[in-house]
């Protein structure tokens, strides 16, 4: 386990961004990559789960309102999966989705970013959740 952590620290942290909006994924990717993070993208919950089956990122940035499998359903799937349960999740939400946030928190989400967001703030939140930076 310790070894794992060390090797994890050595390589760049990987973030999976799950959002149906291509432009938003690009925005997140651009800002995280410039800060040295590795970013992969999924357009919805189903694609995200398929990707998670293959490799596990260090953090998932998860949009709640998505077609197909939405963010809450992904959280439920993660919580039910022994292997994926521990991956920290930060929710991407629009204002006014308080109920979803509460539901997300109860399912183990580590935090949330409200759209529209300040990219610097978003990067700080992600890094904090990754343990790369103190909040």
């Amino acid at each position: 386990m310790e070894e794992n952590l060390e090797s994890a620290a050595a390589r760049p942290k990987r973030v999976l961004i799950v959002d149906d909006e291509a432009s938003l994924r690009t925005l997140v990717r651009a800002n995280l990559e410039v800060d040295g993070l590795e970013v992969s993208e999924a357009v919805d919950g189903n694609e995200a789960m398929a990707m998670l089956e293959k490799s596990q990122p260090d953090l998932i940035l998860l949009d709640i309102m998505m077609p197909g499998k939405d963010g809450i359903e992904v959280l439920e799937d993660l919580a039910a999966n022994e292997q994926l349960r521990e991956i920290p999740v930060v929710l991407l939400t629009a204002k006014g989705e308080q109920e979803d946030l509460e539901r997300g928190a109860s399912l183990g989400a580590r935090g949330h970013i409200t759209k529209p967001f300040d990219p610097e703030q978003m990067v700080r939140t992600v890094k904090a959740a990754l343990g790369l930076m103190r909040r």
Partner: protein
Amino acid sequence: MFIDRVTVRHNDPRQRRMATSAAWIYWLGIIVVLIGTRLPVESDFNIDAVLLLTLGGFLSTVALIIIPWERLTYKFFYAGAALACSHIATLIYFSGGVQSPYGELYILLAIWAAYFFSFSGYSLVVSMCIGSFLLPYFYDTQYGTASITSAIIKIMFMLIAGGLVNLLVQQVRDRNTELSRTTDRLALKIREVLREKEKTAAVLASVADGVYVVDTGGHIALWNKAAEAITGFTEAEMIGRHCFGAEGEISEGFEGCAPFCGAAAHIDEGFSSTGYEVLTCKKDTEKMWLSVSAAPIRDSDGTLAGVVHVFRDISEYKEIDRMKSDFVATVSHELRTPLTSILGFSKTLLRTDASFSEASRQSFLLEIVREGERLARLIEDVLSVSRIEAGRMRFDLKPLDAAPTVNQVIKNMARLTSIHNFVINMPDDLPPVSADPDKLYQVLLNLVVNAIKYSPDGGPITVTTSASDGKVLFEVEDRGVGISPDHLPHVFERFYRAARGKGGAAGTGLGLYVSKSLVEQMGGRIWAESEVEKGSHFFFELPIAVAEEAAKEKIAS
């Protein structure tokens, strides 16, 4: 009229009793006369003749009694009376009371007089009976019988007796007339009530709202035509049906549908409601929303007799309502999404803690433009809808060469996608269309944006124009996800959105609705063909501008 009155009077039990009694009195009278005049001791008494003639009277009496009263016309009545009278006359004659050639005549005279004074048949009979009954006590039958005087006295007797009886009868008849008038009034009233009931029934049948009445036992007592039409359950099925079991369960046959006779469970004093909404279903189990108002029905003494319910199918309103709130949610999401990108990329460019390559900065700016245009389109669509709905959309129709508009749309859209290639098939001699340039641009833009949006894996997007039959046909074709046959008929409906395809293509459900409205108001039509996973093919046609207008336009330009 006369028949009516006879019928009414004959049907009057009082009248019937009266006549029956008269007949019995007559018969009793004969017996009394037979005994009272001590007939058997008379020398020239012929018992056979008396019995024979008495038989005639007897038969006429029996006829009066047994012939059904309503079938007994006045003819029969007077025939019976005449027979009875001739019997009395003969009886008196044989008993020695009248031994003169006037015997029969004065009886006829008596009948005529009775008729003249409008004695009725039975009072005549009674007067004869009483007259012949009284006669032996006041008159010497042996002498003076041959005189006219004695005949007149006999007539007087009979008439006085008959008159008295008639007075009595008249009083009864007056009362009966009164009664018959009351009956007539009552019949009229009943007819009125029936008419009123028919009217009410007609009103109930013609109202568009379903109306039903549940009695205090929870049974349906009334179920109108509209209720049938709305629910599919017929009056015959529903009348007497118990809405609920004792535990408030829905009765059989509703297949688990929520009850539209829901208020039956709440029947109690003062129960009423206005427009409560209930999800229920039709006979064919199709779900529907009803708005139900209920009010108690009370008897004249105030006891609860049932509850009347008026309901209407509000499924459509509910659906529009649902679509509207969906729309608000979608629009806010759709507005926020490009805004998030615009703000996000702008702030990214402004980040002081990170530096981006020139290529990245260019791509961010392109994203900002792309998302800004998306926002502009969305706002345009929303505004268009409100203008269309309010009927305030203005059209500046003029002869228009469609080519520049098509090219402009493609040029603007091509900048925003790298995975699609655009193919334009446009003849050089395309005639001018009659259209509003801005609106044509908006329609084409919407179709091309959809083509991009619903073909997330890229591919060709073909825009074709052609002219035929006075119309210019525009086609926009993609090789995208397509539209399923379930969704296809609805894509032009307001707020309608097909399920979002791969790549999360989302929309407000306004673009095609707006496009349809715009095309139709420019005198054209729009339609679509599609196959899932093969792509969609949208068509719209606009009229070719008439020659003079086109010529004018050419000269002007």
